[in-house]
C-alpha cells in the first residue's frame, strides 16, 4: 500500500525537475545536433538547408579549429597538473595539525569566492606591462632587467592566463583533496610510525594510494572545467589566435560569424572531446571512482 503511494509521489516530485531538464538541456542539445547537419545563420535571414556531414568535414580540415583544440589541450594539461600539485601541497599543509590552520583554510577560500571575471580583471591589472605590480616586483628584485608585456608577448600570453586559472581554481582542488585526506584513518600512520617508515615513505605508500579516489574525482571535475575554458581567456585577452580556446572559437563562430550550422558542429565536437576524457579517466581509475553508493 504505502510503497505504491510512495512510488506515485516520488514520480510527482521528480517530474518538475525532469521537465525542466528536458526543456533547458534536452531540447537545446537536440537543436545543436539538428543544426550541426544544416547550413543556417543565427538571424535566420537565409533559409536553413540540410547539408549532411559538410560541417563536420569542414571541421576536420579547419586550421582554426585545430589551433583552438591545441590551445585548449595545452591550457588543460598544464593548468590541471599545476593545480593538482599545488592543491595537494595545500591540502597536506591544512591537514597537518598546527596553530592557524583555520586562517589558511579561510585564506584559500578567497580565490574560490572571487568571480572568474573579476579575478581575470585583477590579474590583468597586476600583469600590466607598465604599471603592473608583478613587473614592478620582478624588476625591483632584479629578476628581470626589462618589464615584460605578459599579455601581448606570444611566449608568455597563454602561460600568464594559466597562472590566473591556477590561482583561482587550486582552492577547489585543495578542498576536495583535503576531504579525501580526512577519510584516511589515522591509525594506519601510527602503525607505519612503529614500523619505522619515514614521512616521505608514508606519503608514497599510504597517503597517495588511499587518496586516489578523491584525486580521480578532483581530476575529472577540473579537467572538464578546463576543457570548456572561456571566461578567464576571453576577459583577459579577448579573441586572440594565440590563446583562442574551443569555447571561444565556438562562440565566435556562432555570434560573430553568425554561423549556426558550423557553430553547432563545433559544439558537438567539444561534447565528444569531453566525453573521450571522461571515458579515459573512468577506464584508468574506474575502481576508485565508484566508491560507496
Amino acid at each position: 500500500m504505502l510503497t505504491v503511494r510512495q512510488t506515485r509521489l516520488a514520480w510527482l516530485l521528480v517530474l518538475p525537475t525532469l521537465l525542466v531538464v528536458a526543456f533547458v538541456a534536452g531540447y537545446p542539445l537536440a537543436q545543436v545536433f539538428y543544426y550541426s547537419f544544416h547550413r543556417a545563420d543565427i538571424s535566420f535571414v537565409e533559409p536553413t538547408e540540410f547539408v549532411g556531414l559538410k560541417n563536420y568535414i569542414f571541421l576536420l580540415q579547419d586550421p582554426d579549429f585545430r589551433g583552438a583544440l591545441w590551445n585548449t589541450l595545452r591550457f588543460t594539461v598544464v593548468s590541471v597538473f599545476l593545480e593538482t600539485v599545488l592543491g595537494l601541497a595545500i591540502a597536506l599543509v591544512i591537514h597537518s595539525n598546527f596553530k592557524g590552520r583555520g586562517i589558511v583554510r579561510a585564506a584559500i577560500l578567497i580565490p574560490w569566492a572571487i568571480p572568474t571575471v573579476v579575478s581575470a580583471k585583477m590579474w590583468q591589472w597586476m600583469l600590466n606591462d607598465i604599471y603592473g605590480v608583478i613587473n614592478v616586483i620582478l624588476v625591483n628584485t632584479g629578476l628581470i632587467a626589462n618589464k615584460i608585456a605578459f599579455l601581448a608577448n606570444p611566449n608568455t600570453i597563454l602561460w600568464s592566463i594559466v597562472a590566473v586559472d591556477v590561482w583561482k581554481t587550486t582552492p577547489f582542488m585543495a578542498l576536495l583533496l583535503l576531504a579525501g585526506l580526512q577519510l584516511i584513518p589515522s591509525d594506519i600512520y601510527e602503525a607505519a610510525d612503529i614500523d619505522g617508515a619515514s614521512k616521505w615513505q608514508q606519503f608514497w605508500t599510504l597517503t597517495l594510494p588511499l587518496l586516489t579516489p578523491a584525486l580521480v574525482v578532483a581530476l575529472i571535475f577540473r579537467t572538464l572545467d578546463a576543457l570548456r575554458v572561456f571566461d578567464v581567456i576571453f576577459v583577459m585577452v579577448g579573441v586572440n589566435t594565440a590563446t583562442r580556446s574551443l569555447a571561444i572559437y565556438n562562440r565566435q563562430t556562432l555570434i560573430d560569424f553568425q554561423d549556426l550550422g558550423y557553430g553547432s558542429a563545433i559544439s558537438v565536437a567539444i561534447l565528444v572531446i569531453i566525453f573521450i576524457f571522461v571515458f579515459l579517466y573512468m577506464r584508468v581509475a574506474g575502481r576508485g571512482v565508484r566508491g560507496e553508493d
Partner: protein
Amino acid sequence: MRTKGLGYYAGRVLFYILVVFIVIYSVFPFYWALISSFKTSDALFSSNPSFLPTPFTLTHYQNVFSGAEFGRNLINSLLVAGGATLICLVLGVLAAYALGRLRFPPKNAVLYIVLAMTMFPQVSVLSGMFVLLRETGLFNTHAGLILSYLLFTLPFTVWVLTGYFRGLPRELEEAAYVDGASPMQTLVQVMLPLTGPGLVTTGLLAFIAAWNEYLFALTFTIGNNVRTVPVAIASFGGATPFEIPWGSIMAASVVVTVPLVVLVLIFQQRIVAGLTAGAVKG
C-alpha cells in the same frame, strides 16, 4: 621519547614559511585590487606603486555609481541569480526527497542523468539555448537568463540535496509514518526543517554560480537592461584603449566581491562540506 633536535625546529620554520607563502599567494591579488580601488590615479599609474592605499580616495567608487548603469547591473544580477536559486531550490528539494528517501524504481537512472548534467559543458548547448530563447521570446530577458541558468544550478542542487536527505536517520520518517503522516506531510513537517542548513549551503553555492556566470549572460543579453555584473565589469572601458579606468574596474570588482567573500567566510564550514559532498559522494 626523542628530544626535539635542530632538525625538528628547522622543519617547523620551513613549514611556517610555506604556510605564510600560501596565505600571501591566496590573498595578495585581492588585497592589491582593494588598495588599487582606493588610490588616486596618480598613485595607480606610478612606476613605484605603494603597497598601502595612499593617497586615499573614494573617487573610483563615486565614478562607478555616478551613472545609473552599474546600479542597474547589480539589480539584474540579484534578480537573475536570486530567481534561479529560488526555482532550483524548490524543484530540487522535491526531487531530492524522492531520490533520497522514497521507493522509486528508476532512481539510479535519474541520478545518473543529474550527475551527467552537472558535468555538462555549457558551451555545447550555446547555439541550442540561443534558438530556445529566440523561439520562446525570452532572449534578452531576466526570465530567459534564469531559465538558462537552471541548466547548471538545478542538477547541482538536486545532487547535493539528495546527499543531505540520505544522511538523515530513518527512524524519524518511520515515526512519522507510524503516527499516520503521509509521505508529503513527512517531507514538509519532519524532513524539511532538518534540511535547513543543507538548503542554505546549497542555495548559497547555486547563487554564487549564477552570480558569477559570464558566457550565457554575455551571449543572451544586449544592451544594459538585462546585463549582469560580470558582463559589465568585463566591458568597462575608457574613452580609448589606452585609458583603461583601472581604478574604477577595481572599485566595481571590490563591490561585487566583498559580499561574496564575507558570505563564504561566514559559511566556511558548511560550504566546504557542501562543495565536497557535491563532488566526492560519487
